[in-house]
């Protein structure tokens, strides 16, 4: 179709680690003992292969993150219903017609590229390329099928591309609903520590103390930062005779970890694309 093969390397990557492993095993390209992929005899070899795959996956994530500057986006969350298997998206025709979506005159070619970030996150790019600068656009999406959510960039055209060119391939419904980030989500996120194994450690917390919510003039927000701000605030209060009433004096409007950040009326920011951070992100997204 004459596209610059800019993102071609994305498509050569495995859908996810085990699927790849199983496929290779089925094709007998792996030097394994015949008594089963997960048998004792094959253990060491399988671990070795899985580790290689993990390394290649993490290289892949780093490459994606660098190439697409994902950490600069304030992602907006949308829910989709009655989802379809991902093969539909992977099998869709790559190119699409941009003309119906833009008002400018001129030739533009559209292209959809998708690749897995992890077992539960798929990165999608909808891009229009053209000689005319105003028709050159690129929109990014991250799709989390297990929680039926899509993160997308905050532009009208992004929603339009999504509705017409992506949604039909991932959902049986033609609706998608915006899920605003609210203070209650920030609170559950910040207080999520019952299970120490799954604990999400907050490094940033922003508390709104504006006239509108508290009737206090002269202050808009309080920001606390540290390795573990909730624990820090609690210990400070226990150890010293100090009142940390501000923790309760306004809505909590933003909370962040080293991996990602949620903020009321702004959206979600992802600082790090790693398997472990995506897993934690998924926990918080599942509360939306």
């Amino acid at each position, binding site marked *: 179709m004459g596209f610059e093969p800019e993102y071609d390397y994305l498509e050569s990557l495995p859908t996810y680690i085990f699927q790849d492993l199983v496929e290779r095993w089925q094709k007998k390209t792996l030097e394994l003992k015949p008594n089963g992929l997960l048998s004792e005899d094959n253990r060491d070899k399988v671990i070795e292969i899985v580790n290689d795959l993990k390394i290649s996956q993490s290289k892949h994530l780093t490459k994606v993150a660098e190439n697409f500057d994902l950490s600069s986006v304030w992602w907006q969350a949308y829910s989709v219903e009655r989802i379809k298997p991902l093969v539909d998206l992977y099998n869709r025709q790559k190119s699409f017609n941009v003309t119906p979506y833009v008002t400018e005159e001129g030739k533009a070619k559209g292209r959809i590229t998708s690749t897995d970030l992890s077992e539960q996150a798929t990165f999608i790019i909808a891009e229009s390329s053209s000689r005319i600068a105003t028709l050159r656009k690129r929109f990014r999406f991250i799709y989390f099928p297990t929680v039926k959510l899509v993160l997308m960039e905050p532009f009208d055209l992004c929603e339009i591309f999504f509705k017409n060119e992506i949604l039909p391939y991932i959902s049986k419904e033609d609706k998608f609903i915006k899920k605003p980030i609210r*203070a209650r989500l920030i609170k559950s996120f910040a207080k999520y520590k019952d299970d120490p194994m799954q604990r999400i450690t907050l490094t940033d917390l922003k508390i*709104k103390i504006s006239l*509108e*919510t508290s*009737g*206090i003039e002269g202050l808009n927000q309080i920001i606390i930062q540290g390795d573990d701000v909730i624990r820090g605030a609690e210990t400070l209060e226990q150890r010293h005779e100090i009142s940390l009433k501000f923790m309760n004096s*306004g*809505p909590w*409007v933003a909370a962040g970890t080293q991996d990602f950040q949620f903020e*009321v009326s702004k959206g979600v920011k992802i600082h790090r694309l790693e398997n472990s951070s995506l897993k934690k992100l998924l926990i918080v997204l599942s509360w939306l």
Partner: protein
Amino acid sequence: MSSNKYTGGSGVQIMKQKLVLKLVLLGDPGVGKTSLISQFVHARFRHSYQLTVGLDISSKQVKLKDGRTVTLSINDIGGQARFAAIRHMFFKGAHLAMFVYDVTRAETLENIMDPWYKELMEFCSQPDTTKSAIKTILVGNKSDLEDYRMVEEEEGNSLAKRMGAIGHISASAKENLKVDDAFKALAQSFFDEVGK
């Protein structure tokens, strides 16, 4: 002459045209007590915060379900801590109390039971009124700020039950949502239980 006479709750007998109920609004500073009153009485809302110094009284007539009219004497009590020492003086003789919290600030709900409810119960008694005869309602104000809500509807419901309030209403003085409902339901409740 029974036709000229109304019997309210608590055995208060009030003559026609003189049906006046004393209502007090209680809650933390900045929750919007003055704003709720201003919306209810004057249909006005102001964005800037002017704290209530001590006490402000206004009045408004409310129509009951059976067509009768009752005058509410609305006592807006400043929520700032510096008025704590004197505010109980204004509780005396109250028939109705509206407890107000701010849905975006969890601590304002926590403070309803203690100090606000506790203080009212301590000081409201008057010779012909028993404490339990005071009708109360719990109002979660600023419901327009849905994105900033920190208190679940359910938390308010359960507190209202524990206080023996007639109900819990989410309202917005700013958008004029459920403001009239809250005042009217409270006034009406004073007559509902005792009948005529």
